[in-house]
C-alpha cells in the first residue's frame, strides 16, 4: 500500500514535468516565435514574408500536432512503466 502511494506520487510528478516541458514549447512557438519575437526574426525571409509570419500561420499549428502526439506516446509509456495501463 505504502509502496503504491510512492509510485503514484512519482507517476504524477513525471506527468506534471512532461506537461510543463510541452507547454514551454507550446508557448515558445506561439507567443514567442509568432508574436513577441517576430521583430527579431524579421531578417529571416520565408516566401515573400518573414519567419515570424510563417510561425503565426503555419509553424505553430504543426508544432502543436507534434506536441500532442509526443505527449500521448510518452504518457502511454509511463502508464506501462507504473503499471497503470488499462
Amino acid at each position, binding site marked *: 500500500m505504502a509502496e503504491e502511494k510512492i509510485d*503514484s506520487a512519482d*507517476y*504524477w510528478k513525471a*506527468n*506534471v514535468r512532461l*506537461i510543463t516541458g*510541452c*507547454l514551454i514549447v*507550446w508557448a515558445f512557438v*506561439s*507567443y514567442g516565435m*509568432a*508574436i*513577441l519575437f*517576430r*521583430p527579431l526574426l*524579421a531578417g529571416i525571409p*520565408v*516566401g*515573400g*514574408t*518573414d519567419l*515570424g*509570419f*510563417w510561425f*503565426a*500561420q*503555419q509553424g*505553430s*499549428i*504543426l508544432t*502543436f*500536432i507534434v*506536441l*500532442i*502526439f509526443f*505527449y*500521448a506516446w510518452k*504518457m*502511454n509509456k509511463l*502508464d506501462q512503466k507504473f*503499471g*497503470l*495501463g*488499462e
Partner: protein
Amino acid sequence: MSQFAINLLFVGASFALYIGIAIWARAGSTKDFYVAGGGVHPITNGMATAADWMSAASFISMAGLLASGGYANSSFLMGWTGGYVILAMLLAPYLRKFGKFTVPDFIGDRFYSNAARLVAVICLIVASVTYVIGQMTGAGVAFSRFLEVSNTWGIWIAAAIVFLYAVFGGMKGITYTQVAQYIVLIIAYTIPAVFIAFQLTGNPIPMFGMFSTHTESGVPLLQKLDEVVVALGFQDYTADVDNKLNMVLFTLSLMVGTAGLPHVIIRFFTVPKVADARWSAGWALVFIALLYLTAPAVGSMARLNLSTTIYPELAGQVQDEEAALQASIQHGEITTTDAAGFAAAEEWTDHPDIPEWMVTWAETGLIQFRDLNNDGRIQMYNDSADFSHLGWEGNELTVNNDILVLANPEIANLPPWVIGLIAAGGIAAALSTAAGLLLAISSAISHDLIKTMINPKISEKGEMLAARISMGGAILLATYLGLNPPGFAAQTVALAFGIAGASLFPALMMGIFSKRINDKGAVAGMLTGLILTLLYIFTYLGWLFIPGTNMLPNTPDNWILGISPLSFGAVGAMFNFAVAFAVSHATEEPPQEIQDLVESVRYPKGAGTAIDH
C-alpha cells in the same frame, strides 16, 4: 443546369447522407443520446470532434477575417489549434477517467456542491448560446446564398433546419453523422483552395502555394498582396501589430476557451480508455489542421483575387500605379438606389465588366455598391485613405467578410460543381457545431439542472422531452440575437470562447491539478470570471448584444490597455484563478473523499466506461 440547381443538388445530397446515417444510428436511450455509448475509436472520435469543433466560424468566417486583417488575425489560427494542446494535457484524460456525462457533472461532484453545479450550468449556457449566435450568422450567409434569399430569411431557415436536425439526433446519431460531415466539409474547403493555389502560383498545395511565386507578376504571392493592398491605402497584409499585449491575450483567450467548451470536452467522454482520450485529441487536431493550414492560403488568395477583380491591371507587373488604379472595372447605369445611395440588387447586371458572382451575392445584401463620384467605375479602397487626387470620393464597394470563403470559387471562376460543393460544406460546418452545442445546452438543463438538482425521479421520457424543449428555446433565442449579431461569425464565436475560458476552464483545471481548491473558491472564481468578462464585453458591444445599448464605443482608444472585448477572456480567467485560490486558502480544506476523488482522476487505471446514473 443552372448554378442554383447544382447547389440544391449538392446540399440536398449531403443532407440525405446525414439524415440516412442519423436514422441508421438512432439514439435509443438517454445515455446514447448524450455520449454514444462510450465506444468510439480515437480516429473516428477525432474526426467527429473536428466536425463538431469546426463550425461556421472556421469554415465560413475565419479565412475572411484573415483576408481583411492579415497577420493581425493569426490569433484565430493559433488560438483555435493551440487550445487542443492544453485540452489534451490538462483536461481530457482526467475528465475521461472521471467518467460522467457532462461538464457540470464534474464541477458539481468535484466541488461537492449544487451551487457550483448551478454556476457551471449558467456559464455553459451563456457561452454556448453566444456560440450558437455566431453559427446562425454563418449559416444565414450560407443559406441566403444558396437559396438566393435575403440574409434574414437565410437565418430563419437555418434555425429551423438546425432545430429539426439536433432534436432527432442525439450524440450517437451525431457521432457518425459528424464523421460524414467532416469528410464533406474538408473536401469542400480543400478543392477550391487547390484550384486557386494552382491558378495563382502553379503550386497545387495551398499551404506551400501561399509562400510561392505569384505567376502573373513574378514576385512572391505575399509580397504581391502587400503591394496591392498598400496601393489601395490599406496596411501591409503581413504587417506586424503594435499592440502585442492584445494579440497575446486574444490568442490565449481562444486557447483556454477551446479547452473550456463543453461540447468539445464531452467528446472525450466517448472513447473507451484514458489513453484513447489522449490520442483522440491528437487526431482531432490533425483533422482540424488540414483546414487550418489551408485557411491562411484561402484568405490571402481571396484578398488578392478580390482586389484584382476590381483592378485587373494591379495583377501583373505594375508600371504606372495611378493608371492601374484608374482602370477599375465599370458598371452599368444605376437608376434605382436605396436611401443610403446603394444600388438595388437588380441594377448590377447590365455591364460586361461586372462578374456574375457580384450579381448573385448582391441579392443577399451582403455585398453593396454605390457610385459616389458618378464616374461609372467601381472603386474599392481603404475609406480612411485620401485618394481625392484620383477623383475618388469614398469607398464604393462593401463586401461582408463572411462571404469571402463561399464566394471564393466564384471569384476565381471555378466550375459550378465546386461552388455547389462549398455551399454543402459551409452548411455542414454550421449544422454540425450548432447541433453539438444544442446538445450540450440541453443536457445541462435536462440532466444537470432538472434530473440532478430539481427532480431526480424524472422519467427517461420526461428527461428527453426537457432536453428537446430546451434545444428549441436556445435556438430561438440565438436566432433572434443572430439577426443583429455583435460581429462577424468568427468574432461572435471568439466571444463565446472568452466566456467559456474565463469561467469553466479554470474551474476544471484547478479541480484536477489542485486538491486544495474547495467549493467556495470554485464558485467565487467562476462567478468572478463570468461576470467580469460579460461586463467588459457588454460595455463595448451592448447589453445582451442589443445594438445601441453599449456604454462605450467599441474602438481601441476606449479599451482598457488596448485590450479588445474579444481578448478579455484571458484576463477573466486570470481573475478566476486568483479569486479561487485566495478564497480556498482562506476557508477550509475539501473533505477527504474529494481529495481521494482528485487522486483517482489522476491515474488512468480502472476508468471503465462512462458511469450511468
